[in-house]
């Protein structure tokens, strides 16, 4: 193959990858029935401690301050709404945010994990995104792993006195990328490649979903940053109230 032919082949592969982006590229949910039973149980079991901690802290908070129940419900509805609305996308596909990175920054990890699971059940039953048997795996990648990284990076960035908006952008983007990597790993663990094992299969899944998920992560970072910016200008009192609730939840 000549150098010109190689360039042509590479270019056509890139064009094919970009143009063959599916019409509906929502946040990476594993579909209903896709995982074998053992993996459904294992991922569900892995989520249980996080959920138990979340439920206990929310119960304590709502006993102390009844209004928090309504604020948290509104937060959950907000995460559902932003994950169901279309956002602008460079690939021309119909993309959606995960919303859990923003949730972790605003409400903390315990609340986001519980709200995330409720939102995932709603997404399965109202939007046909994800499923009930794959709830554990989806909850681990979207409501636990992603928000945990976003939260850790956000707190670390603030402690190191990095500008807040830059921290919000980077933490939301990397949290989204981790969600995508964890989902690919979950799929690869369930279905390893016969020739290269789990690693080769993970690479295949990462490559297939990369054309939609990589731009989506950057866009999620930008929008999260703009939402935080907008909130700081129009909802200072509500943000202070949220901060107080979040501190009580993480105590």
């Amino acid at each position, binding site marked *: 193959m000549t150098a010109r032919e190689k360039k042509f082949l590479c270019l056509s592969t890139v064009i094919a990858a970009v143009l063959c982006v599916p019409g509906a590229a929502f946040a990476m949910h594993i579909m209903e029935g*896709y995982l074998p039973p053992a993996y459904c149980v294992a991922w569900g079991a892995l989520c249980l401690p996080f959920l138990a901690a979340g439920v206990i802290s929310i119960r304590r908070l709502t006993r102390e301050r009844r209004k928090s*129940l309504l604020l948290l419900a509104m937060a959950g509805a907000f995460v559902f709404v932003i994950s169901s609305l279309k956002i602008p996308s460079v690939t021309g596909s119909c993309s959606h945010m995960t919303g859990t990175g923003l949730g972790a920054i605003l409400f903390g990890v315990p609340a986001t994990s519980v709200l995330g699971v409720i939102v995932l059940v709603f997404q399965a*039953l109202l*939007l*046909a995104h994800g499923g009930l048997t794959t709830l554990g795996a989806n909850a681990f990648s979207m409501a636990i792993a992603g928000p945990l990284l976003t939260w850790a990076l956000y707190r670390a960035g603030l402690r190191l006195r990095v500008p807040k908006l830059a921290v919000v952008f980077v933490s939301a983007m990397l949290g989204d990328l981790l969600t995508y990597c964890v989902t690919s790993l979950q799929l690869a663990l369930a*279905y390893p490649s016969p020739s290269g094992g789990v690693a080769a299969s993970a690479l*295949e899944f990462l490559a297939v979903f990369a054309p939609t998920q990589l731009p989506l992560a950057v866009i999620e970072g930008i929008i999260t940053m703009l*939402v935080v910016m*907008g909130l700081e200008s129009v909802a200072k009192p509500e943000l202070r109230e949220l901060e107080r609730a979040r501190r009580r939840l993480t105590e």
Partner: protein
Amino acid sequence: MTALLTAIALLSLFAGRLAPIPLAASCLLPAALFLLPAGRHRHGGGPVMDACARRSRLSRENAGVKAAGSLLLLVLCICSGSPWPPLLLFCFLSGVTLLWGKTRPHDYLSLLTLPAVFLLLSALTLLWDFFPERPAGAALSVPFFGGWLAVLPASQELAGLVLARAVGAVGCLYFLSLSTPLPELLHAARRAHVPAVVTSLAVLIYRYLFLLLDAARTRRDAADSRLGYRGLRRSLRTTGLVYGNLLAHGFRRAGACYDAMESRCFTGEIAFLTRPKPVTARLLLLLLPAVAAMLAGVLLLR
């Protein structure tokens, strides 16, 4: 795009197993089905499935029995070692949803395109593998960057089973979600001793999400009419501002709601009234044979 993906995935799945004419028919007919709702599926217009569930004739049946039956069928579906029981279950439950529930076929097909994209993309990764040398006995193979991308018969079997399980499970999920309004399922969850704080949160989230969707639609239309979505840069900025404004509006609304609840002696417990729906013999006659047949299928066809 879904139609194209369907044709490629089915070609990879059945290549080497069917004669050319049946192979072409099995690729093109399902692909053509996805062309029917093309251009008519919309996002952001509110949950379509909720409206379908409220319209369904099956919504008159007991939610707890439907949920328990569907979950049992779901579990049996993913435990199946043969592709046939899940595929037959999908046909049976789709028939029930369309004929008994009277869900519109166009809505049903349109909703099927959502999981189809994920399933087909994932099936392609299960079917095609990269090999340094051309493998012997490959059903399909193409040269790729110095090696070969090939479909092996073992991969076809695995992908066929995974696809069949997923299709059956989607049938179960749609049977439940297109026949049962969400508040009834949450009531069933409360009766199944799910923590009260979780069910209360879920009920409130369900009520608020329609308020927020409506508010988001109004804000998006207002921004759109002011050319707020022209160009990627401006679109992103507008989306961020709309979302920030939406959350602030939501919290103010929740505050007002709390004041109203406090003035009506809110004690922290939210009581919701539900209409009792007795368990009917026809629902049991529908679900019990399906569960028994699936159980037999899972145990016998290993």
